[in-house]
């Protein structure tokens, strides 16, 4: 039996603040074989040369915070949240 093909998911990414400037875009649709949001950040970080370590970010999916091990689904909207600085 041949190994199964990785599942490709279509996700939407939105970028804010320092990550928006680094990525050079405010949003994108992309296909990914990442299974968790953490893997997706690793993928994006590598591709775009981002230098913000994971320990400094939080991740939101579909409008609310999620854990790094959150499993991606088709159609998810993911936001990587750099250190906040309101007030």
């Amino acid at each position, binding site marked *: 039996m041949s190994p199964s093909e990785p599942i490709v998911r279509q996700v939407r990414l939105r970028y804010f603040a320092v990550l928006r400037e680094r990525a050079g875009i405010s949003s994108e649709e992309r296909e990914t074989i990442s299974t968790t949001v953490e893997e997706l950040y690793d993928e994006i970080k590598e591709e775009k040369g981002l230098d913000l370590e994971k320990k400094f970010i939080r991740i939101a999916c579909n409008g609310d915070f999620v854990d790094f091990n959150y499993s991606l689904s088709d159609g998810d909207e993911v936001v990587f*949240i750099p250190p*906040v600085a309101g007030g």
Partner: protein
Amino acid sequence: MSFDLTSGPIAVDIIRQGMMSQDCGGFVAFEGWVRDYNDGKAVLRLEYEAYAELAILEGHRIINEALEQFPVKDIRSVHRVGLLDLKEVAVWVGVTAIHREEAFDACRYVINEIKSRVPIWKKEFFADGTTDWTRCQNCSGDLGNK
């Protein structure tokens, strides 16, 4: 209770007027202003950017937490987004209560949690022509955003 974002000046007097209540003996407000220096550098103006949907969700959560923890009557808060000049009000938190101590405590809780949890970012424009996304107070990593 309310938590809002606005791209225009915060209508402090109108919000305060709307919170006045004859069964409250005290009102405490915190205003965060745009200051003309940070880290020893002269600041000309600020820009706030928000992930609006989640900022509003998290802001409401914080206010609900404060309403559960402290015996206060009402809490309202507004945060600016967009470009701000020096001396403008960047964030406003108002609390009414029967007694003042609870109002002070709730107000301090709300502004502290807003600063550490709500997805809003501040970009400083310095007099020397550089800009910087302000680093998180709770992390020491170099974000490289010179």
